[in-house]
């Protein structure tokens, strides 16, 4: 592939003159990042700033009998040594529950543990010093006397009568349970010719953002304001939470987020050590900085997945799927994470399983249990990789059972492209999807028959290659149905403000945030197109609660679809305002004018009438020359939230081509394909790179990444030498194709694309591994990560 290949197809459906919609324009913020001139929170220093390090529990579950801090207080550079009880006087605890997850429960969590540590790595004492090194030195001098308590680590036995209850006041270790019935599952299974039943296991893994979590909190008693520089995906959500738990007003809190070194859902949650940093700044009346080191990250960044899913599919001999059933069990650590809860992923799995298919008979149960491990919560593609791997694993096993090609069984059962609006087995509502178009496209891209022939030929030579597919649906553009209805102050709407500056350039302030995915580029493209200026004359401002419209930030693939639409509408409104000014200057009807290429033109002929710089000059500096009573309004704000559909579901399919070495158990990825449908594609290059990055993150989960705990709740591989992440040498090239089914909920028609890669990759790789191993008589692998050991066990070789 050459760079030139990714450059633009010129125009699109949203065709304004000189439209940037559908063009691969480079992101505006990349030059400074390639020059090392980013402004990450890790880089922030402020006058009088001090650093905090935390003493962390070495035990998975222990009562804190005493904390001796005198030696630490005497250490060089130390400003304060603050145990949990003292910090609890500054900041109130929180409970991670939402009312729409019926029955979900959790216990109060404190910034620093007060009398009990509930996982290995939980902070039990804060040490503040002039440098981070001094804080760490002094932390080693804090003596904590622990009384070790029994640790609940196995989710399978967490609900047994003999298992200790982690939070006795809650009665049991059950966080949340959901049961769901749709259609008639018993009848469906009775009608099946074959019923395939298996158990899937998904290991815990974690985000490993390249920049660890970072925060600088600066409480200024002189103005009674807190300024927080925070590597977060959701500045307004954090503004609310900092204010709430410090018992101050939201307008007293400013959250600023410039560059963030990777998020992926890791940085959209409340972390005790970050809350502690804020509380310490209030206590000490000066800026306090906390940057997690990598070892801390492994035991405190949210972990993800950790599911055991018993699953069943019924199929007729003609390939018709008759019923689905799943029973999901997931262990989430000792607290449901605040404020989004740790019940959402299990809820998603119930919603999404079987999602691409027509069979209406479905039974599901999901149980979420407490355990003494690090907290588990939403991470890129929440629930999707599990639901997709379970669904697609079952479909492939069913196909093998009845002797049908995996493409054929999908053709037979995927929801027809002309059936929309339609519902998935759980009842989730789809506006418009394109499973069959995507399937046929990927079959063509990968030259499926040729690949099958090559596979057969190589098998004769003792080379075992496999092909695996995974169709999927993806939740994007969430409405208030996701969190707002459950009582969380997490906004689903977003706003954009656009302003004509005094030289005729456009400044856009948006509530969505940039985490590297390209939100700033997409906003610039949308605003430039709707308003009518060259993109170089648009500047985007993000990540500042004092200066951007109230918005949700970046999560659940919402920035382009929701933030983008707000920007589109705001820029249209500003265009109308500017044309009103131009009309009054030119004594022309505004509707007879347009803005194209940064110039006000005659709409009919395109001939130039007046430059934007001249409009701005007159409006700002010579308003006295405008007609009496006319007021120029050169700033416009619009907000947007999806209303017609709770979510803009997208769809797609992935395929993996890989080789398994039956002697070593190693899997070599050869090629990977993804066809997805995110509606209107605003920037093809950015969408493709979201897909590729997401695929590789999913491959990590499928083959490498695993937070391995022992029975006592000790993380065994919490460092980057022992926890394997995908590196360049092992990753394949990934071909991406698109089908375009815009949502009618917005003018732009854009849906999200950030999580599709991660949603489908694990299932397709799993199916490909099993396809490769089948002629060797291996037991199907339904466990991730599929390490060489797992492969060799499936082959019966160890």
């Amino acid at each position, binding site marked *: *592939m050459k760079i030139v290949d990714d450059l633009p197809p010129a125009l699109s459906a949203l065709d304004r003159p000189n439209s940037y919609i559908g063009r691969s324009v480079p992101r505006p913020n990349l030059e400074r*990042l390639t020059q*090392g*001139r980013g402004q990450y929170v890790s880089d922030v220093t402020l006058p009088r700033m001090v650093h905090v390090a935390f003493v962390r529990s070495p035990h998975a579950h222990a009562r804190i009998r005493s904390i001796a801090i005198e030696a630490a207080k005497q250490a060089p550079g130390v400003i304060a040594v603050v145990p949990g009880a003292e910090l609890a006087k500054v900041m109130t605890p929180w409970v991670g529950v939402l009312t729409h997850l019926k029955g979900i429960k959790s216990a109060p969590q404190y910034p620093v543990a007060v009398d009990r540590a509930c996982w290995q790595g939980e902070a039990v004492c804060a040490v503040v010093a002039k440098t981070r090194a001094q804080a760490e030195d002094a932390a080693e001098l804090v003596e904590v006397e622990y009384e070790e308590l029994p640790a609940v680590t196995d989710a399978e036995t967490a609900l047994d009568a003999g298992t200790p209850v982690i939070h006795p006041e809650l009665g049991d270790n059950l966080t949340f349970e959901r049961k769901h019935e749709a259609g008639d599952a018993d009848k469906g299974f009775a009608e099946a010719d074959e019923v395939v039943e298996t158990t899937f296991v998904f290991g815990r893994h974690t985000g490993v953002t390249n920049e660890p979590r970072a925060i600088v909190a600066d409480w200024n008693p002189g103005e009674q304001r807190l300024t927080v520089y925070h590597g977060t995906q959701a500045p307004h959500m954090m503004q609310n939470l900092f204010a709430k738990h410090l018992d101050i007003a939201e307008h007293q809190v400013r959250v600023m987020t410039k560059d963030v*070194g990777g998020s992926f859902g890791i940085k959209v949650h409340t972390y005790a050590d970050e809350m502690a940093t804020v509380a310490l700044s209030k206590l000490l009346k000066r800026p306090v900085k906390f940057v997690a080191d990598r070892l801390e990250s492994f035991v405190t960044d949210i972990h993800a997945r950790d599911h055991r899913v018993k699953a069943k599919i019924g199929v007729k001999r003609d390939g018709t799927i008759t019923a689905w059933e799943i029973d999901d069990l997931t262990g989430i650590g000792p607290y449901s994470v605040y404020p989004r809860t740790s019940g959402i992923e299990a809820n998603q799995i119930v919603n999404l399983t079987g999602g691409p298919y027509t069979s209406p008979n479905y039974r599901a149960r999901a149980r979420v249990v407490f355990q003494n491990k690090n907290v588990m919560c939403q991470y890129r593609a929440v629930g999707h990789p599990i639901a997709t791997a379970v669904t697609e694993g079952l479909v492939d096993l069913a196909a093998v059972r009845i002797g049908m090609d995996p493409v054929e069984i999908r053709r037979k059962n995927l929801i027809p492209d002309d059936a929309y609006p339609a519902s998935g087995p759980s009842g989730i509502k789809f506006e418009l999807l394109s499973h069959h178009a995507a399937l046929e496209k990927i079959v063509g891209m990968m030259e499926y028959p040729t690949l099958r022939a090559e596979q057969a030929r190589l098998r004769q030579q003792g080379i075992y290659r496999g092909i695996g597919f995974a169709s999927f649906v993806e939740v994007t553009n969430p409405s208030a149905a996701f969190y707002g209805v459950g009582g969380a102050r997490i906004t689903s709407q977003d706003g954009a403000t656009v302003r004509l500056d005094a030289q005729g350039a456009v400044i856009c302030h948006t509530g969505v945030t940039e985490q590297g995915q390209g939100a700033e580029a997409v906003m610039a493209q949308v605003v430039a197109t709707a308003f009518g200026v060259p993109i170089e004359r648009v500047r985007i401002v993000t990540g500042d609660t004092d200066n951007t419209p109230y918005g949700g930030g970046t999560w659940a693939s919402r920035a382009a679809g929701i933030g983008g639409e707000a920007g589109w509408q705001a820029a249209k409104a500003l265009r109308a305002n500017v044309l009103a000014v131009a009309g009054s200057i030119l004594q022309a009807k505004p509707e007879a004018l347009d803005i194209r290429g940064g110039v006000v033109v005659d709409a009919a002929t395109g001939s130039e009438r007046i430059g934007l710089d001249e409009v701005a000059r007159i409006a700002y500096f010579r308003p006295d020359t405008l007609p009496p009573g006319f007021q120029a309004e050169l700033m416009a704000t619009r907000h947007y939230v999806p209303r017609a559909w709770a979510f803009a579901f997208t769809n797609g399919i992935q395929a993996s081509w890989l080789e398994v070495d039956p002697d070593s158990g190693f899997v070599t990825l050869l090629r990977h394909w993804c066809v997805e449908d995110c509606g209107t594609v605003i920037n093809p290059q*950015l969408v493709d*790179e979201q897909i590729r990055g997401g695929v*590789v993150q999913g491959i990590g989960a499928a083959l490498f990444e695993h937070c391995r705990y022992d029975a006592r709740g000790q993380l065994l591989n919490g460092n980057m030498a022992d926890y394997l992440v*995908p590196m360049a040498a092992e*990753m394949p090239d990934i071909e991406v194709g698109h089908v375009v089914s815009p949502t009618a909920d917005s003018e732009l028609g854009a849906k999200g694309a950030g999580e599709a890669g991660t949603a489908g990759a694990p299932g397709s790789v799993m199916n490909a591994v099993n396809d490769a191993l089948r002629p060797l008589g291996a037991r199907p692998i339904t466990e991730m990560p599929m390490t060489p050991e797992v492969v060799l066990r499936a082959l019966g070789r160890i």
Partner: protein
Amino acid sequence: MSERLVDIAVTVNGELVRESVEARKTLVDFLRDDLGLTGSHVGCEHGVCGACTVRLDGVVVRGCLTLAAQCDGARVDTIEGVSDSGEIADLQDAFRRRNALQCGYCTPGMLLTAQELLKESAKPTREKIREHLSGNYCRCTGYQSIVDAVEAVARARGQA
């Protein structure tokens, strides 16, 4: 816990710097905290992720596995230096055009490592590029765009 100070004289991006540093201070902490050169990043502090990659006497090293005290008399080049000199302007432009970075945190290290490869090898294969970059962790891109960008620059330099 008083730390022994070591006097060092280091040429950083062409400027002679004289400082007293704690014996235990890593090169990347020295660059970031003492000199304000925050383009070199701290990712893992145990030599795996490559975010702290800098050049020491012309050779790519891990800034987190090198002590500042070791650098007395040495020449250190960081992303700020090679940016200002224009040495890697073509690589930077290719990364930008190919969107070979998302969050940008790995990018300074990735660029310095890629530049090392392109100095060693005029026409690296994609496999060779992947292998050479395999000590630099990127969570965002999936690597393909980075490989594309490096390959394109190798080809362009070969034709120059």
